[in-house]
Every structure is written in C-alpha cells, then in structure tokens.
C-alpha cells in the first residue's frame, strides 16, 4: 500500500468527534464500569480487612505488607496472566484493578480509625458502647471522611490506569488512544486522553462533594 506524505494533523478533528458520539459514549461507559466495579469490590474487601486489623493490631503489618506487594505488580502483567482464565470478560481488568485499590483504601480507613480522638472513645464507652459496637457505631462513621478521601485517590488512580487494559481488549477510553496512535491519527488519541483527564477530575470533585455532604460537621472546622 503506497502512501503519500501525510500532511498535517490537527489536535482534534471535530467532524470525527461528531461522527463518533455513539462510540465515545460506549467507551466512557466501559471505562466507568471497570473503574466502578473495581472501586466497589475494593471497598467491600478493604472495609472488613481494615476493621479486623484495627481490632487485632497484630495483623496490621501483614495486611499492609500483602496489599503493598500486590500494588507493585505491573498492571499489564496482571491483565495478561489473567487473560487465559477470565478471557474477554471484564474480570480480566477488574481483578487486578481491585487489588490496587486495597492498599489505598486500607491505609485510609486505618488512618481514619486511628484518628478518632481518645476522648470520643471514652465518651462512647461511657455511653455503653463497647467493642465491635463502638467500632461500627462510633469509630467507623467518624472515619468516613478518610474513607472517601481514599476512594478519591483510588478512583483517580484507576481512571488513569484503565487505558492499559485496552491493550488486552478490554475497551474503555484507552481504545481511542491506541487506535489513534496506531494510525498516526491525532484526534482519537487526544479525545481519549482529554476524556480520561476530565473523568478523573469529575470523579474527584464528585467524591469531594459526597465527602462534604456526609460530614456536615466538618465543613467549617476544617483546620480545627
């Protein structure tokens, strides 16, 4: 196939964007699904682990150590190794992405639980809360801001990581990046990248909003 010199390529060819609104929507949904399920699974797993570790301090180092090691596994390797087992199902991406959220969430949940002031604990004790009940009814709610802060970090991290999953056929906005790159076509690469960044900023802002809504008492006492 003989090709003449390829001349000029604008950053975004808007007619392409117009022609691809359907696919853009589909890729955004795929991207959000991978991020959303991974966050949800991450929270479902990290929360009980954190509560256990908080009660039984002995396992703290082990839990942080294991999740820390999981964190160092390169995502492409994890996707590629899962491919023969999970195939093209979304689990190929969701399983590794979930493991990445564990360290972030675990750290934040523990930090939130640790930061509950001693006098609050004593007061709770005085009111008859003890043991697991105190943990669930007093300490955990107080740790919510920290948990959501962890979710923010995890969400932004995953949104930036999902493009790699496009290399193993998982779809999402990374598909545009790779397609644009493979055809020396700037528009899809730019569109994919910009949408990922916007998604990350929006997710961060949204979770910040949630954080403020669920902790009205913190709004003005931010630096207290």
């Amino acid at each position, binding site marked *: 196939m003989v090709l003449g010199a390829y001349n000029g390529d604008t950053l975004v060819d808007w007619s392409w964007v117009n022609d691809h609104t359907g696919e853009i929507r589909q890729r955004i949904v795929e991207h959000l699904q991978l991020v959303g399920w991974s966050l949800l699974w991450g929270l479902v797993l990290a929360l009980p682990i954190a509560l256990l570790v908080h009660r039984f301090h002995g396992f703290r180092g082990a839990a942080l150590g294991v999740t820390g090691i999981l964190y160092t596994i390169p995502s492409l390797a994890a996707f590629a190794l899962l491919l023969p087992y999970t195939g093209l199902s979304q689990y190929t991406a969701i399983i590794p992405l979930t493991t990445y959220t564990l360290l972030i969430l675990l750290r*934040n949940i523990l930090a939130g639980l640790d930061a509950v002031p001693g006098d609050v604990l004593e007061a709770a004790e005085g009111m008859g809360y003890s043991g697991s009940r105190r943990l669930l009814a007093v300490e955990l709610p107080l740790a919510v801001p920290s948990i959501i802060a962890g979710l923010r970090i995890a969400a932004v991290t995953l949104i930036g990581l999902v493009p790699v999953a496009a290399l193993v056929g998982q779809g999402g906005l990374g598909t545009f990046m790779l397609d644009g790159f493979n055809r020396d076509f700037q528009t899809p690469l730019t569109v994919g990248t910009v949408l990922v*960044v916007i998604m990350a900023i929006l997710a961060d802002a949204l979770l910040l909003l949630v954080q403020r809504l669920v902790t009205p008492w913190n709004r003005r006492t931010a630096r207290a």
Partner: protein
Amino acid sequence: MSIQSILDWFDNGDHWSGPEGIVHLLWQHVQISVIAVLVATLIALPIGLFFGHHRRGSFVAINLANIGRALPALALLLFAVERFGVADPPAWMQTIGIGSIPTFLVLVALAIPPIVTNTFAGVSGVDPETVDAAKGMGMGGGQVLRRVEMPLASPLIMAGIRTSAVAVVATATLAAIVGWGGLGRYIYDGYRVQDDQRIFAGALLVALLAISVEGVLALVQRFVVPKGLRLAARADDDDAARRPRSANPGLAPGAAIETEPVVPT
C-alpha cells in the same frame, strides 16, 4: 504455569545474558529510573522549596498532585513517541542512562508532582514559631531554609521521592509497548506470544525492583533525616509517612491528597 516452570525460567542461563537477558534489561530499567528520578528531583525540589518557604501557591501545589495522578501514563507515552520518535538518543544521553527519550520524559513528568507537593507540604508545614525563633537567632531567609526548614521537612521530602521512584519503576514497564527495552519487555513480549512464564518472571522482577527501591530509599532516608525527627517518622510508620496523621482528610479536603502514594502501572 507452575512454580517449577518459573524456577526453570530463571534457571535457564540464556535468560540472563544477551540483549534480551535479565542483566541487560534490568540494567536499562534501573538506569532510566534513576536518571529520571534524579532529574525530577532537581526540577521539583527548588520549586517546592521556593513556594514552601514563602508559604505561597498551596492551591497549585495541592492540585499538581491531583493532575499528576489523573494523567494516564500510557497516553503520555504515546504522545511522547508521536512527538519525539523512537530514535536512539545521542551517545552522551545513553552514557548517563537515558536509553529512550520519550520514556525518559514521561517518567520525569510523572515523578515531579509528588516531589513538589511533598516538599511544599513539608516546608510550609514547619511551625511558624520555629521559623521565628530561627530568625530571632539572626538567621537569614536562606539559612532558615537550609538549616531549619529543609531538615524538618526532610521526612516528607524523602517520602515524595520514594513515591515517585516506585511509580517510575512501575511505569517504565510501559516502554516496551512503544518499542523500547527494560523489564517491561518480558511482560509485553510474553503477552504477545502467550508465554506465561515470561510474563510472570517480568512481573516478579519489576515487583522486586520496586520493593528494593523502597528499601534503598528508606535507608537513604535514615542518613538524610536528622536524628531528632526519626522517632517522629517512625511513629508515622514508613508507609504512613506519606500520609501523615495530620493529613486526616476530615480536617482539610485538599490536604488529604497532597501526600498520597505511588501510581501502579
């Protein structure tokens, strides 16, 4: 894939030598990571110190970390390759360990934000009374920075560098996708030919390298951080040094994120 097959892979002498060997690829990986973190530190440290010392630009510093994390490494790499191509860098660059210009640039770009934010947080977080006391003893601005603020901020600065270094080691694996080397070769090539042993070996080497980098920098930290601060740092625990208690997000929404860790890749 069994443990035995992984051991066999490592036991094969052919996998250690030559241009596709562990020695060569590991060395490429280490070199480009080291130079990228060094250059990023040289750029980020002065910026963080300046704004931290003058207690200005906190908005920028905090948001820089967020934006840094939001930028997809893969996209940056694709952009960089489009722009700079895959030509071998000039000899002098290769001598100092830069084997691929686009990879190097992306790694530097990803390594800067955590160092800037942590340096800023560390320096600007020094107790104003301590600074006043130092000034009262007749120290000038530069002296305050060098002899008071920098030592006090050193645990956070080091934490920032560690965060960046680990992220750099992980991200460098992506270079194989765009035709360069490093340990990512095993992962990407292994994927292309469905050789699970190779992928696993590559992942193991990258993980070990990341853990070693953490370890080495933790050691460096021991020498850099003044004795009096070490106890405090330990109370924070080496991981939590990046997420100090005081950064409880309940306290300040922005502050919660300013010292967060590592991007897996």
